[in-house]
């Protein structure tokens, strides 16, 4: 007997990240086209890449959702139908929309399923009913909604619900921050957010007081969300899809987070509980990707002062990506592209698509043709030791001990 689990929805900032996320277990991915999405600096997909990405995902049983979550101007709305046609042709599974004008256009001009973006700040059952009546089939709830509240919304309105389970948090009600618009001349709701909420501010009661009387604080920076420990609550509440934030983040992030949550969900599917011996391993894995301190955000209760991240920088993560497997030459070696610097003597680790990792100490570094080098630099093609389970798109990372040793030398 298997047990129902929600969909795991991972970010796909590029075609390669899409393949990584799907290969590491994501049930669905979301991505942006060249226009209309919020992440202007992400490697957004061209039409050819979109086609290839959708085919790849569908072959692996995964869904593809395309974000159209910018707040669009009239001119762009005029151009949208052509893009919708392409999306229908390449058979994407849904679009993610935040603007009522876009919802109306998609509904009128295509047969695409519409998911409401978190940018629309849908926070309660009456709002959910409004959007349902507009033809929306799934709502990505505002990040301020607790799981308990989401459950109540679901009971009142028969609609698919999606919630964030992992990643960076926008401190504002989504769509309700225009700091960048006024301070940097970049529209936050069209991909231009300058992350001003991560800055340090001096705070004072009076605009004219001396520095000595001011308080210096990263007062509006949020810790990152991590919902692994409350996965059971999401399942019990019947939340349909669990979303991982981070289209701008690395392959390592897309792969690791997808792997951890998909393994946890798979465990639940088979066992009906999350009392897995792997729980600790999963948590350790989540620590290995770059992040701010983790927090439950608003998942269990409205986020309090402990949800504020008091520093500028991300936590120092000692585990770094070393390479990405490109090809396995059977029984001989693994060809990988170096994605970070490493050298002979370092301990590397293959992250397979499923199960435990495999670490090994690198005796020497060989380039693609077998010539020996002392160091690998990013972009270099290298031969790594052959391991049967290793396959293309596996991430190889350098373990902290080796980095530590090297720094000590």
């Amino acid at each position, binding site marked *: 007997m298997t047990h129902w689990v929600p969909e795991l929805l991972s970010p796909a900032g590029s075609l390669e990240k899409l393949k990584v996320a799907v290969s590491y277990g994501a049930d669905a991915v979301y991505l942006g086209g*060249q226009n209309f999405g919020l992440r*202007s600096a992400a*490697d*957004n997909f*061209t039409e*050819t*890449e979109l086609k*290839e990405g959708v085919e790849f995902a569908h072959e692996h049983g995964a869904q593809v959702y395309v974000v159209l979550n910018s*707040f*669009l*101007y009239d001119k*762009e709305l005029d151009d949208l139908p052509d893009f919708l046609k392409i999306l229908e042709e390449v058979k994407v599974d849904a679009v993610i929309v935040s*603007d*009522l*004008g876009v*919802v*109306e256009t998609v509904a009128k001009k295509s047969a695409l399923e519409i998911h409401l973006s978190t940018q629309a700040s849908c926070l309660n059952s*009456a709002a959910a009913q*409004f*959007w349902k009546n*507009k033809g929306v089939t799934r709502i990505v709830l505002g990040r*301020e909604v607790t799981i308990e*509240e989401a459950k109540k919304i679901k009971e009142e309105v028969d609609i698919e619900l999606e919630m964030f389970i992992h990643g960076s948090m926008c*401190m*504002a009600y989504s769509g309700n*921050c*225009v*700091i960048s*618009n*006024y301070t*940097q001349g970049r*529209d936050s*709701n069209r*991909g*231009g957010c300058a992350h*001003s909420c991560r*800055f340090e*501010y001096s*705070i*004072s009661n009076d*605009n004219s007081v001396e520095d000595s009387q001011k308080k210096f604080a990263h*007062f*509006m920076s*949020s810790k990152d969300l991590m919902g692994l420990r409350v996965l059971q609550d999401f399942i019990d509440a019947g939340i349909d899809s669990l979303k991982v934030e981070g289209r701008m983040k690395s392959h390592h992030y897309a792969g690791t987070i997808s792997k951890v949550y998909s393994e946890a969900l798979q465990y639940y599917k088979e066992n009906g509980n999350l009392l897995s011996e792997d729980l600790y391993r999963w948590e350790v894995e989540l620590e290995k990707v770059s992040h701010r301190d983790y927090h439950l955000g*608003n998942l269990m209760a409205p986020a*309090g*002062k402990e*949800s*504020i991240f008091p520093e500028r920088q991300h936590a120092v993560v000692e585990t770094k990506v070393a390479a990405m497997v*490109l*090809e396995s030459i059977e029984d*001989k070696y693994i060809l990988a*592209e170096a994605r970070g610097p490493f050298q002979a003597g370092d301990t590397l680790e293959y992250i397979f698509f499923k199960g435990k990792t495999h670490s090994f100490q690198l005796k020497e570094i060989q380039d693609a*043709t*077998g010539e020996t080098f002392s160091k690998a630099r990013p*972009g*270099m*093609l290298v*031969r790594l030791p052959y391991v049967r389970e290793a396959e*293309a798109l596996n991430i190889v990372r350098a373990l902290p001990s080796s980095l530590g040793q090297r720094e000590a030398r």
Partner: protein
Amino acid sequence: MRIISFHENEAVENFLSFYQQTKKDHHLLGNQEYILGPRALSRVSSLSWEETKKWAKELKESTGNKVFLQWDILMTQSNFKAVCAQISQYASDINEYFDGIRVQDTGALFWLKEHKDIFREELIQEIHLICENGNHNLEGLKSWYNFWPENISRLVLSAEFPAQKLNELQGQLSCQLEVLGAGNILLFYTPRHLISPLYENENENNKLGEYKVFGTSEESPHKGFPIIENGHGTFMFNTKELYIFSEKEKLDELPHFIFRIDFPIESLTCEQWNLLFRKEHESFQNSRSMGHTKGFFRTNKTDVLFKKLKNHRLQDRDHHYVGDVVDVKKKEHVGILIKGKNLALRKGDEIRLLSPEGREKFVTLKTIWSADKENRESAKTGQIFFIPHVGGISVRTMVFKTEVSSH
């Protein structure tokens, strides 16, 4: 027409004494409306429900103008249910003291439509929908209005619209339109309480738990963002007050617009009301402690940089794309990974190499070999193959199969 928003007792007091002094001068005062909300429903109001009712009554009696109830907080499910229950309970008061209701939360709008029968007919026919966040296209604005056309009497538009766009919109929407004319621009709204943790040991006298402070970041040239924390969360405003009333020519083109005067940070004094209504723009601005901006009223270029950020190189990919250069060894080889689906390259094919810097090279595949240096006839998707070194080509160069070589 002007609509004036009040958030504290002093603000209404000052306005009323200005009004009393000026009331004979109808031309100066023009048409007016007022906004009042209790702190339970309104984002940055400090008024209790009793105070709100008191001022609503007094404003109406003194001026004969309409007063609208501000219910502009955003609400997650539990709070939403509690607030709706409270509104139902106060429906008779709302009917007595107010002429209409203003909302932003989609749920609040939907709920009002569902519960319209508990309100007086004239009141429920004056719903002002706040569309200040996003909502930059006509299609969307029309659709909001059409959700409840008999009752949504006004859309409150984004302050990011330039005058030219506002002008266009006034001919295309059949309800009243409102935009911020003078006041504080809200930049950020979160339900989290971000200021109180900084004053944890100093707030014994702060019974309401409300804070008004200024924040400055070294990473931004803008100094002194006013910040308010209260029961609804934390609100940050622009460092400068918006003031567009000096833009006479542009305003003349917007005769049907209602301009909101909204100063939650520093209420206007009686004298400042006087200067504002007398259109003594410079004196008014000089009398305020914050600087002034016209915001995006003249032009909005926030999209220019956004367009520049896009990676144009990517737009060059088409269906001839076969993969990327993954290795380059000077004078020896270029390694290519075939990435496309079900693709193959054979000896004799011609490929086009397009480097990240935009350098373009055409190469006919005369010899190709594997990492083991074994000569090959072809390579397929997922495989890496090598060709003799090509100058000017680096890793991440894109590889296309040319038309010439299509088999």
